[in-house]
């Protein structure tokens, strides 16, 4: 019995590793959502669209400007982040005093508009984006499987980016302002911190994280207008499970659920696309604030 399980696991290990790659995207996207929600109290439903725009910007930079993957990894988040600044200043900042629901509705509307615009201009079939030369070559031999270098890079990049975000929020002065403003923004502003500007930049940073994930995703998934909306529903489940607004929670839950999804593919493939939502339902019933959230 145990031997059989081990055998199955060995056969399934590749699925688990691939689950980790999916987990990398869950982690990055839910991290951005957590940063935005923690600070602005806005549930950014446009996050998936911003992820998709990140991938498209990388594609445009390459095909229209001849700018390759590595510069795009920096430029696309900056460009999409700047777009985030405009959104926050002109629309989202007007909603801070209202219920969460208004922010959710606004950003949901924005997501539909952005997606629609891209579908009109680029159609719904995907556009190819080749991985950078450095990461193209033959797959890495992990002993039990061959993993394309690029997927390994995705996991590494997501871990590093999550760690950087965590350091900024937990260990720096800026992070202390952010954490304090989450508790009492008016007082932080009364100490002389320009809180409205900080909120704008936080939104931009969250959006930039989505775009960064979008660029990472471009060579794996084909670049298409729906790539965000299909992912974002799962990511919202991840955020609910991890606990809204918890940075560490969203990263750990992101990777963790990627793994769980991979494992489910091994043992009970029929459930692999629903397992996250089952966990979400259980967590909501047992611990509504999420695994890492503060009640």
């Amino acid at each position, binding site marked *: 019995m145990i031997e059989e399980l081990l055998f199955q696991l060995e056969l399934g290990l590749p699925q688990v590793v691939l689950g980790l790659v999916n987990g990398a995207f869950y982690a990055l996207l839910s991290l951005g959502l957590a940063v935005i929600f923690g600070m602005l109290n806005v549930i950014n439903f446009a996050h998936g669209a911003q992820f998709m725009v990140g991938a498209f910007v990388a594609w445009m930079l390459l095909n229209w400007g001849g700018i390759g993957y590595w510069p795009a990894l920096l430029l696309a988040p900056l460009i999409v982040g700047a777009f985030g600044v405009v959104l926050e200043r002109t629309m989202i900042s007007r909603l801070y005093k209202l219920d969460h629901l208004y922010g959710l509705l606004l950003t949901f509307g924005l997501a539909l508009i952005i997606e629609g615009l891209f579908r009109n201009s680029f159609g719904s079939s995907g556009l190819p984006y080749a991985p950078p030369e450095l990461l193209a070559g033959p797959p890495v031999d992990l002993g039990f499987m061959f993993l394309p270098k690029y997927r390994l890079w995705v996991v590494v990049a997501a871990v590093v980016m999550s760690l950087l975000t965590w350091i900024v929020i937990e260990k720096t002065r800026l992070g*202390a302002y952010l954490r304090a403003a989450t508790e009492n923004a008016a007082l932080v*502003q009364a*100490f002389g911190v320009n809180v409205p500007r900080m909120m704008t930049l936080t939104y931009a940073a969250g959006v930039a994280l989505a775009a960064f994930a979008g660029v990472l995703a471009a060579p794996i998934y084909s670049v298409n207008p729906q790539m965000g909306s299909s992912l974002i529903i799962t990511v919202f489940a991840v955020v609910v499970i991890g606990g809204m607004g918890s940075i560490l929670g969203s990263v750990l839950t992101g990777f963790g659920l990627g793994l769980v999804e991979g494992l489910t593919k091994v043992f009970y493939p029929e459930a692999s696309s629903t397992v996250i939502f089952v966990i979400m339902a259980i967590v909501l019933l047992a611990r509504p604030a999420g695994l890492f959230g503060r009640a």
Partner: protein
Amino acid sequence: MADPLLKVDGLQAWYGESHILHGVGIEVHEGEVVTLLGRNGAGKTTTLRAIMGLVGRRSGSIRFEGQELVAARSDRIARAGIALCPEERGIFASLDVTENLLLPPVVRPGGLSLDEIYALFPNLKERARSPGTRLSGGEQQMLAIARILRTGAKLLMLDEPTEGLAPVIVQQIGRTIREIKQRGFTILLVEQNFRFAQTVADRHYVMEHGRVVDAVNNAEMAGAMGRLHEYLGV
């Protein structure tokens, strides 16, 4: 006499639809400790919050070092050199003691250094890594005061720093206020306890129903006791 450091004139303030302040006028000169006395709901806290830019709507005039601040946002008011230690103390739970202490940005030179602050509040040094809200009430109050001494703000507004604290801690806070006055800070203090106020202040304003109704020099306090008892209902 020199121009006052802070001159508030005809200050009106609203929270939503409720009109709280109806034309408050006070002056605070450099180096003074001035208190606002009055019963609960007289508008003392709202006066401090209105000066700091923390009420919904306000009108009238708030001049600090000659600069008009009534329309300014609270971060600009802070940068002009005014700091508030709020009634609820505002210690951040997700920050440890040192982070709480270092949170308010330095707005000008002239604030105390961290060493000077620790010399003034040795307890805080011992508890440097504790989460801010693990401190006792007295320590939290010390932290809330200490926090605004670093910033270089000239005018410190303390909202009921003795509220709910044991007598021995109240005495300690009294000593601290006298000490920081000696170092050249100007203090606007909200108090319900006029016996405490008497031990630290130079002048007192009495507020009722969102207006200043009386002003007493500390030296004349003994003669004004009858009046004060009547105002404060004690």
